[in-house]
């Protein structure tokens, strides 16, 4: 089971802030996971937008990395507080 976190507007689009999913065996990179989740939640490519950053186990990843062994994937729209 992989924990997926949807932040900000992504949480509104998926209508959930987090979920635990059984990822099919052939989904083993970030990009593949995004496509799969886009379809699963009818997100119209929202996760694939270049502004969305990804964290694997709370570390930012900049390329299409493997998700093998990952516990938690976070999808982050543009941030900003204050």
């Amino acid at each position, binding site marked *: 089971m992989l924990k997926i*976190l949807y*932040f*900000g*507007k992504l*949480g*509104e689009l998926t209508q959930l*802030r987090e979920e635990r999913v059984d990822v099919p065996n052939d989904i083993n990179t970030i990009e593949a996971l995004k496509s799969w989740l886009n379809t699963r939640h009818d997100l119209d490519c929202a996760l694939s937008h270049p502004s969305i950053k990804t*964290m694997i186990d*709370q570390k930012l990843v900049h390329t299409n990395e493997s998700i093998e062994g990952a516990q938690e994937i*976070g999808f*982050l*729209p*543009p*941030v*900003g*507080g*204050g």
Partner: protein
Amino acid sequence: MIIVSNTPFDAGERLNAFMEASQNAGAIASFIGRVRGEGGDTKSLYLESYADVTEQGIEDATKRAYARWPLTDILIIHRIGTLHAGEEIVLVATASEHRRAAFEACDFLMDYLKTEAIFWKKEITKSGSTWVEPRTQDYTDNKRWS
């Protein structure tokens, strides 16, 4: 001290406690951001963070501030959850022996919080809600320090 919390805080009281704890600093700069209490279209905010990731990021930013300016202490309080008009969103206070160091570090940390800190902010008005992203000016401000 870094506090990310969904509990409202008393800015004046926190600032007094901060000053009490950093007796040797002659200069204390601070910034408070809050939800504007606008006339007609009352606005509330909803803020999300990413648990420890958010706090770790802020912690790293304070380390950069300590490395760059002679500071004796830093206080950052940032609200999450639902905030109503008039409530404080953020308090940043910096203590130093030097006025310029206190001002610049406070300014730097606010720029970090506005553009890089791991928060998501939704503005809710009577006419609907929108997720707010940093303005171009915020990104420009933040580049002053790199």
